[in-house]
């Protein structure tokens, strides 16, 4: 390109003015051959011909000067900013340095802004990603809350139905008993039995609901006591044989000969397990039989409930223990679908196992296996003595009536009070063979009353009753001086046997002393 001399001179002057060039001629071994321009601008003013330039200009180290190289925007360790042109010439190289201080500063300013914006965008990208994750999490939570709300709604509807149906039946039967004075004895008995049966189903339902609530709250307690195995099976037969008969099913219960008369287990919950299994078997069996068999092997109690119902396909077996699973709905059967899930949890809480053998069309066998040490038997012949007095501290008049009637039937003398303070006074005055205390009595609660009695020298057994049955209630009662604990409403057979056992053990320990005349009722 040819330019007018005036212009080319102008350009040369501008470059010299703005770029402050410095030119070095360097040999292949980095020795300085010649230097022109303004070396001071680049910190090279100390360089002399013959010096090794790589010390002052490290960028020249390890460069082979065999082709033209442009290195724009170079900044050295002390901050000089320049463009470098390496221009080879035979066995040497011209190194041309052009000042780039202003240019680099300008570029840095733009690039700084651009990079900061990119970093902000990057941060925004991350925040958006977090927001999207949070929204997704929120959607999942909302769906879970909606599902939970729907389940609760269905649960309340189911429970309302499950309570309403038997309550309506009880109400209708009771109204008929009250309204019809001329009702025949047989009809009256039949209505009474119907009320009894339906009430029993309600008690089971409430038991299962309470158990479920306790299992969910992890406040569940297993309380082992002496249990009469044959009496337990007899009780089950009394309840379930008529239910099976109503459906024209045969019902059988067998207890193997080697099963001990008494074993140590949680009577109430073992009973609840068998009630659920038998109730389910009868519910889903439409012809044939339902059987329960109790065996004993190596300190383990094995209970099997077998039916000739339609059986379960594999997928049904897998869903069997889910809450609110109601099995096949044809024909629809009553029940909340709570029983089997709770049954398995109960068995596991008692350190036992529950196994299911079933196939479509082959019926179902459910087997429960629990550790249950044989217990010293309590002689049925050990009848209450004329001196056996029981003092009851209970504020619920219905429970008091029930206990008074049943314990009097069993041959005990009974004295009842309705608060803790009166209980302490009565026990200290009458020195009974046994005291029964309600855990939640007004004034002084049962365990507090028991503690006061122990401190006052009362040594005979104290039986605590509570509707709650939480672990902390049991621990509170037993640590306060109560001898045993039973949940309300107590099973009357269990209550009578436990009272008998407690009084016998109290007698063996020498209590009560002979009753002084002054303390006779």
């Amino acid at each position, binding site marked *: 390109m040819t330019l007018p001399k005036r212009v080319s001179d102008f350009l040369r002057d501008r470059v010299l003015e703005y770029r402050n060039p410095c030119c070095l001629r360097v040999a292949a071994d980095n020795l300085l051959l010649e230097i022109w321009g303004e070396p001071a601008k680049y910190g090279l003013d100390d360089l002399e011909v013959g010096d090794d330039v*790589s010390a002052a200009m*490290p*960028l020249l*180290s*390890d*460069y*082979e000067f065999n082709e033209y*190289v*442009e*290195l*724009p*925007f*170079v*900044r*050295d*360790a002390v901050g000089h900013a320049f463009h470098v042109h390496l221009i080879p010439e035979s066995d040497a190289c011209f190194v041309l340095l052009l000042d780039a201080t202003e240019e*680099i500063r300008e*570029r*840095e300013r733009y*690039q*700084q802004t651009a*990079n*900061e914006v*990119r*970093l902000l965008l*990057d941060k925004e990208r991350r925040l958006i990603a977090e927001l999207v994750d949070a929204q997704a999490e929120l959607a999942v939570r909302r769906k879970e809350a909606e599902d939970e709300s729907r389940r609760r709604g269905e649960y309340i509807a189911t429970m309302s139905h499950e309570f309403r149906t038997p309550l309506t039946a009880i109400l209708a039967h009771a109204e008929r008993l009250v309204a019809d004075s001329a009702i025949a004895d047989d009809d009256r008995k039949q209505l009474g039995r119907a009320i009894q049966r339906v009430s029993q189903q309600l008690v089971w339902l409430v038991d299962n609901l309470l158990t479920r609530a306790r299992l969910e709250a992890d406040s569940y307690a297993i309380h082992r006591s002496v249990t009469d195995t044959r009496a337990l099976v007899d009780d089950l037969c009394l309840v379930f044989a008529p239910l099976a008969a109503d459906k024209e099913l045969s019902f059988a219960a067998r207890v193997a000969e080697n099963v001990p008369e008494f074993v140590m287990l949680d009577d109430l919950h073992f009973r609840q397990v068998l009630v659920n299994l038998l109730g389910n078997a009868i519910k889903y069996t439409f012809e044939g039989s339902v059987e329960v068999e109790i065996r004993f092997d190596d300190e383990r109690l094995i209970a099997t409930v077998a039916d000739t119902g339609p059986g379960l396909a594999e997928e049904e077996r897998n869903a069997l223990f889910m809450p609110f699973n109601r099995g096949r709905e044809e024909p629809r059967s009553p029940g909340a679908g709570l029983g089997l899930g709770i049954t398995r949890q109960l068995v596991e809480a008692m350190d036992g196992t529950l196994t299911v053998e079933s196939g479509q069309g082959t019926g179902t066998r459910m087997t429960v296996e629990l550790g249950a040490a044989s217990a010293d038997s309590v002689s049925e012949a050990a009848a209450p003595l004329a001196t056996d007095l029981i003092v009851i501290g209970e504020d619920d008049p219905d429970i008091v009536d029930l206990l008074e009637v049943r314990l009097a039937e069993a041959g005990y003398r009974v004295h009842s009070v309705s608060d803790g303070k009166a209980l302490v006074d009565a026990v200290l005055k009458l020195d009974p063979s046994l005291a029964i205390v309600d855990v939640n009595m007004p004034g002084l609660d049962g365990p507090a009353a028991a503690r006061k009695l122990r401190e006052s020298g009362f040594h005979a057994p104290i039986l605590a009753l509570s509707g709650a049955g939480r672990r902390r209630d049991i621990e509170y009662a037993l640590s306060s001086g109560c001898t045993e604990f039973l949940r309300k409403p107590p099973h009357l057979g269990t209550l009578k046997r436990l009272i008998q056992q407690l009084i016998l053990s109290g007698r063996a320990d020498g209590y009560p002393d002979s009753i002084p005349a002054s303390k006779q009722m």
Partner: protein
Amino acid sequence: MRTAKVCIIGDFAVGKTSTVARFAKNEFSPKYLTTVGVKIDTKEIETSRGRMKLIIWDVAGTDRLAEIEFAYLRGSAGIIIVADGTRAPTVDSALRLKADVFDQYGKLPIVAMLNKSDLSQLWEIDDDILATSKAEGLDWIRCSAKSGDNVAKAIEALAEAIMSLSADPT
């Protein structure tokens, strides 16, 4: 004394200049200042094979190498690749840069520094990313220009590799 040119490369704002400042001057500034072009610094160190002068070319951040960066990298004896542990995409950039370098200059000694290990609460690099990266030839060393953690160790390992290669070029 053996001199060796090493280039430090990586995506923008991963902490290359801070790493060099920590290594060469034992300094750290929390303020982010962009690099334009290339900054050249030196540091003499002791290796198992004798004293060595490292001439460190701190190349402006980029996620791909172009003609200008190739000019800066010419004559390098080794490469320091830096990524930001709080920005996962910078690891991908590092993998691309390593491939560009190897394509142009062959398999040079390389050290991979995963910077900002002090910001553990913002860390984005999980074990899967590390494993994938390792399989592709970058075995990351977690380090922090801020605390100095592992900075000298990583660069000195590269110096040892360079010395070892020059002693036994096979």
